[in-house]
């Protein structure tokens, strides 16, 4: 039997299809401010390739309530379920999405025990990093140098003000790698506090688009004084969880 999980996120929309528990399809496309339409497009292209609709569908993510079909489950429950496949022994999940950040604590059975979300303030979300990095127009060389650079402290709590703080630093002639290192370090610090308001994991599962920033992972490990594990497709775990719950 085929079961699908569709995660309608603010930045990307993701589809995972399982057949008898094995993953046979996954795809990510940008939501472009209309995740419902993106979800319809994804399902359509799956049907074109595979001939038929999956028998069961669970929709999750920010656009879930407006999607015309499928059972609705929140991204919190789906994320925990998806991560449990990869890391059944670890309890804490940090999910850094485009529009929000979450910390989820799951039980030995993969069920949610506790969670917190930040979706009111862009600082400490994927959007914060995207906005500022886009403005910096980085080369891959500068990005690499940032790993070794001394991080410049960034103090502003607000994305808009942090952006102007960064601009001021650059105008003063501070090298870009130092600014970038500072940016990731301050974000890591904020995320570490966020995690520690729920618990103190020895090992943290890190998911969402944010988990692709290796520099962030580096600083986060330092801040948390612990190990961080990342599933192979960190932006797909919620849709995988949705498919498993379908």
């Amino acid at each position, binding site marked *: 039997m085929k079961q699908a999980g569709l995660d309608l996120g603010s930045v990307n929309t993701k589809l995972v299809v399982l057949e008898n528990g094995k993953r046979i399809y996954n795809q990510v496309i940008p939501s472009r401010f209309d995740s419902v339409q993106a979800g319809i497009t994804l399902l359509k292209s799956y049907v074109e390739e595979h001939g038929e609709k999956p028998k069961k569908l669970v929709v999750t993510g*920010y656009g879930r309530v407006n999607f015309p079909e499928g059972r609705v489950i*929140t991204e919190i*429950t789906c994320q925990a379920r998806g991560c449990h496949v990869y890391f059944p022994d670890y309890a804490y999940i940090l999910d850094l999405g485009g529009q929000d950040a979450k910390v989820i604590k799951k039980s030995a059975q993969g069920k*949610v025990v506790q969670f917190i979300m930040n*979706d*009111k303030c862009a600082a400490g979300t994927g959007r914060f990093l995207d906005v500022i990095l886009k403005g910096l127009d980085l080369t891959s060389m500068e990005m690499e140098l940032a790993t070794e650079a001394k991080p410049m402290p960034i103090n502003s709590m607000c994305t808009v003000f942090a952006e102007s703080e960064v601009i001021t630093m650059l105008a003063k002639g501070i090298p870009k790698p130092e600014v970038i290192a500072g940016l990731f370090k301050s974000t890591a610090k904020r995320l570490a506090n966020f995690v520690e308001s729920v618990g103190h994991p020895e090992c943290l599962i890190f998911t969402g688009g944010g988990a692709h920033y290796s520099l962030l992972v580096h600083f986060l490990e330092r801040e948390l004084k612990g190990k961080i594990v990342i599933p192979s497709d960190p932006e797909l775990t919620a849709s995988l969880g949705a498919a498993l719950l379908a």
Partner: protein
Amino acid sequence: MDNRELWTALGMDLEKHDDFLAPVPAIFTSLFLDRPNRPKAMGYFDMVVGDVHGIRVHELYAMKEAGAKVFSTFCVYVPEEIIVATGSANIGLCAGAQYTVSSGEKVLPRNLCPLIKSTMGFKLDRICPYFQVSDWVIGETTCDGKKKAWEILNEHIPTYVMDLPQKKDAKDTRLWEEEVREFASFIERETKVTITPENLAKAIQTINNKRQALQRLANLRKHTPAPIHGLDVLLINQLSFFDDPVRFAAQVNALCDELDVRVKEGSGVAPVDAPRILVTGTPQPLPAWKLHALIEQAGAVVVGEETCTGERYYKDITEPADNISDMLANIAKRPLKVNCACFTPNQGRMEDIAFMADNLKADAVIDFTLQFCQTYGVESYFVGKEMEKKEIPFLRLESDFSDEDQGQLLTRIEALIEMIRA
């Protein structure tokens, strides 16, 4: 005199007032009137809301014409018995609308509790007839924001401030009792009515009856299936602050009679397996219905409120006494049993929450804090700890009176419900 003549007489800004009230009927219809299986006795409360700036304001206006005064309050600590004893009116003012927040921000910092900003805005905008009909505001020192805001409000309406202690030691109890006695003299002076053992005993009885009716209603909610929606009870709790206390108690008791039958029949408003939620934290003053509406929209049912628009208002009654001095002492004693986060330490509140969760068979606790409320915001740490100890699923929510974050709140509430059901 019709409503508009009354509002004009009260110096209201009619245009703004129309604009403020315009969306209310549609919201009230969809949130309340359209819901199936509501108790018939809700009809009275629906009628009060249906003319929320009419009926009761006319009554208060008539009382004033007859020589009485109207005192507006914002806190369950203010001893309403003393006001009622003199034949004057005590009304708890509404302060739960986003509409007036921006006006409040003209004179208050933006990073201040929305309840205070909303209150201030109602007065500055002149769109609350209750505020306009009031002779005095009775403030209190339950938080720094309110304490300082009274000074500004006093520029617009005479404001009397009661100094509530921050601890509950013997000397604090003495201070509060003295405050209550001074308040009684102030009310006598203002109303030109002498407080007698007879009128004070009667007022104590009147307010006790109101609180006991609310206790009875609260206690009916422990049954499964829930005989009444949390949102309906919240509305009643909100109206308890400004309706006529005698009539209100009679109507609440009539509702309870109807609910008794439901309980006996085993019928209710939610499925037997609907998750039962206890709401704790800061108040939801009229017309702040968002939280309860979202929780019940998500398929759960709210079975209790450990808030000032709930349990904290009615959980204790005033012991009767046979002379004025003892009556005033007892009036002072009651509020000090109420566990507001303005006190330190406040372990009693954790016991209240644990007791309510157990008594109401709550499946989860949602601790709600109005944005920028320092005392409840900080104390939420202990609520979370206590719930962890008791192994009760717990969700912390922060919001204001705006509608914009409903999707975000709903995601959290739905996840909590999934957690309970998993």
